[in-house]
């Protein structure tokens, strides 16, 4: 029993010391700092205080290169075909213990799984990187006041995070491969640490101190692995984000029913000359975005005569069957019946209904 208790005690201590082994110092002591530890001894001999003894040692804190590129929001950016300035958001943090420049490259994923699922299927155009202006404009969101970055972030101080936007234009639906609903385009933002110290100029590439270490300031890469191809401890870090096309996909169906004939009236009417027929043109949106200003045009066949004032717009569909309802609207210019539905939400359907008489 005693041995068990001792064993527990040892485990407890081990757990404690392993917690202490990984304290959270984000960036920490500035590279090049000399740490001096001095111990002193006070003592007496024969009751008489003696001269204090001192012992000291020094060492220099080396340079730890560490950075973090993170996609912000962990959601895809929904875009529509032909959209310009579609924005994905990233954050770059300098967790090194020295102020550094960071070279930035935004690139496109070719094939493979995108950050938020789906397979990369197309490429965006005109890809750019902007740095958020934290003073003016909309802080945290891309706006015209943000700074276009051509190659690098200048002099990013220790423990500082900045927001970066990868901005691109989405091809139109005419592009090849097709930019269809649900198509995904993945982008990667990669930052590589460069020497800091000179504002306005991109610093030289940084190399890790290899081989024999010096007593002075050495360089150690401490970054973690990023996206595929970006290994740990290479002085750079990266993350993916993606665009997903959300567009409307419309399907049109047409149905009809006989309302009345001159002999049966509305009881079991037959399609004889003089009968009134009601048509329904239903437009269903199976896409991921609302379709707006949907114009429906239907030429009335020559064997029918359009019944004026019978057009109903914006009716409903139940279980795939037209409800033959709606509100009055639309217009007739022989031979076409037409009407505009303001908006059909994703997953919804709307109708245009009109009546005509059999000649």
């Amino acid at each position: 029993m005693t041995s068990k208790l001792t064993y527990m005690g040892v485990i407890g201590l081990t757990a404690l010391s392993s917690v202490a082994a990984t304290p959270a110092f984000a960036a920490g002591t500035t590279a090049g700092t000399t740490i001096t530890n001095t111990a002193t001894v006070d003592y007496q001999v024969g009751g008489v205080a003696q001269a204090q003894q001192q012992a000291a040692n020094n060492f220099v804190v080396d340079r730890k290169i560490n950075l973090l590129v993170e996609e912000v929001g962990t959601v895809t950016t929904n875009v529509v075909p032909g959209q310009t300035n579609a924005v994905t958001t990233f954050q770059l943090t300098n967790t090194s213990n020295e102020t550094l420049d960071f070279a930035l490259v935004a690139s496109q994923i070719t094939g493979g799984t995108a950050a938020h699922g789906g397979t990369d299927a197309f490429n965006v155009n005109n890809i750019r990187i902007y740095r958020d202006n934290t003073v003016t404009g909309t802080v945290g969101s891309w706006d015209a006041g943000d700074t276009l970055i051509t190659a690098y972030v200048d002099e990013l101080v220790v423990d500082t995070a900045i927001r970066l936007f990868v901005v691109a234009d989405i091809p139109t639906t005419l592009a090849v491969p097709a930019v269809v609903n649900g198509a995904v385009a993945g982008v990667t933002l990669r930052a590589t640490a460069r020497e800091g110290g000179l504002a306005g100029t991109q610093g030289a590439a940084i190399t890790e101190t290899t081989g024999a270490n010096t007593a002075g300031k050495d360089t150690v890469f401490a970054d973690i692995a990023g996206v595929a191809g970006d290994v740990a401890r290479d002085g750079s870090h990266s993350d993916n984000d993606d665009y997903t096309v959300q567009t409307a996909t419309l399907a049109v169906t047409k149905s009809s029913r006989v309302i009345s004939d001159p002999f049966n009236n509305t009881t079991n009417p037959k399609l004889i000359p003089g009968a009134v027929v009601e048509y329904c043109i239903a437009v269903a949106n199976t896409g991921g975005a609302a379709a707006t200003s949907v114009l429906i045009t239907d030429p009335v066949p020559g064997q029918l005569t359009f019944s004026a004032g019978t057009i109903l717009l914006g009716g409903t569909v139940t279980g795939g069957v037209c409800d033959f309802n709606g509100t009055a609207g639309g217009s007739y210019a022989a031979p076409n019946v037409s009407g505009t539905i303001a908006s059909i939400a994703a997953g919804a359907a709307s109708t245009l209904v009109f009546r005509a008489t059999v000649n």
Partner: protein
Amino acid sequence: MRTALFLLLAAMIPGQALAANQVALDNNVFVERVTTDAQGKQKILLEEPKVVVPGDRLVFVLSYRNAGAQPADKFVITNPMPSAVQFADAGDTRPLVSVDGGKQWGLLSDLSIPMNDGARRAAQPADVTHVRWAFAKPIPVGGAGKLMFRGVVK
């Protein structure tokens, strides 16, 4: 001030009691690296502090020896923490520590820190500003020993 006072005392009192460098003190620092081998066993290596980056664990080793001809009494070793190093532990050497810049001393478990609201919280290793070992018994002639404590580079 304390140093100056002792030096002054030492200068004023001549005689055999003042033997130069009766006590030798050595101060070494190592970086503690934990490596895991293929079998998953952890190995701890102490290295010279050549490559030191924030977050590294340091082991400070203080070696003392009474090189004089008489026992050394009231033997006290004091080590202020370097500002860029956070105290972690002192193994089983049970030092007295200070968490207020050397004004008050005690075992870490007995000390507390005043908070803004007037209450006090238990002192943590990170609060330690000074480490001190006070020997109850004289160090005999030729007596030697080692003391250690761990810290983490901030």
